[in-house]
């Protein structure tokens, strides 16, 4: 049985996919995951999930968002005056980064 493994580096961070292990049951999957994925990289917690429990939907089946021009949804589309609140600037920066990453693909 294949178990997908998600690793969280520090308390409060996201569990992100980091690989999978082959194990007969959940207990063994946790042990293997700990050895294979929690041994070297900083780890606070691991999730193991049976692969067959994972649902997947891909870009060949559905048109995901963001492929048409919807610039009106981005903070960068609006020119305002004066200093913006720092959380607004932060949000705008995150949007710019996300947009850049899309271009990288």
């Amino acid at each position: 049985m294949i178990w997908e493994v998600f690793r969280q580096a520090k308390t409060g961070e996201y569990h992100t996919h980091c690989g999978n292990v082959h194990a007969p049951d959940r207990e063994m999957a946790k042990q293997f995951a700990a050895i294979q994925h929690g041994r070297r990289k900083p780890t606070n917690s691991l999730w193991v999930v049976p692969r067959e429990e994972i649902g997947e939907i891909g870009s060949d089946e559905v048109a995901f968002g963001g492929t048409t021009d919807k610039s009106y949804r981005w903070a960068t589309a609006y020119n305002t005056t004066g200093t913006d609140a720092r959380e607004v600037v932060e949000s705008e920066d995150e949007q710019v980064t996300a947009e850049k990453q899309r271009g990288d693909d």
Partner: protein
Amino acid sequence: MMDLGTVKERAGPREFSPADDLPREYREAATRMIEFHANSEIMGAYLERPFIRQSPSIDRKLAFSAKVQDEIGHGQLLYRAAESLGVKTREEMLDDLANGDGKFLNCFHYPLESWVEVPMISFFVDGAAMRRQATLRRTSWEPYAHAMDKVCFEEGFHVKHGEDILKELMTGSRKEQQMTQEAFEEWWPRIIQFFGPTDDKSTHHDFASSVGLKQQSNDDLRNAFLDQYIPKARKYGLEIPDEPRIRERDDGTYAVEEDDLDWDEFFTIAKNEYEPGLGQINGRKHAQEAVDWVRETIERDTPAASGHEPQAAD
């Protein structure tokens, strides 16, 4: 189970997750706070929804409908974060909102009647909300903090679009400028009350902050908001109303004279007993009922046996 002392000791940003066995007091306080937040997202969206239709241009219409869609999404995220505390189910929270027991932000109890009022919500109230939400990325309930990551990512657009509407109105005709100023005067005290009563009158503040749920006090948030948004308002030519009196400190920051605000009205609203607010609650309830058949059809249709093309919400 973790005792309250340990909770307070450990209470740092994103410290607790559903894997922790937390005491009832923590879970109830967190549920109250997140449910209130979730309800507010939904009620805000309902308040703004008519202005998708009433937008003065196609650009505004597109942006405004994207914004309202975002807000409903925020509500959904937050009900999940609240539900993960194990105190109330999503169904219970939505039922409470429909039957008038669910609490939500004071600003969304007032009717929104004309386009000139729109930036009062989508610039000032969204700006205030964003100020608060940015601090909540450090709340101790991890699912709440994670929801705030996504919410803050999207909110920058709301605030800047709202500001753009304000700018357009304030550089428009004299009549438009005047009507916008009037709307501002009406909404200004409500906007200031967004942050709730002063710390000493706030019933839940001490506990929520001692367990790391709340990251900044009402007073600090309100002052930070004023520091940022008074200069903005002035820049667009809005005149700050005389009441509530706002003191400018020596360092150029501002503080508000709390006694100039109508706290009776505020607490009537907080109890869901304010007449216009009931209109908002029932309005949403009726909208819910009107589209009941859609939900039922979807539920009856699941799992879809045949190859329905799935449609991502774009």
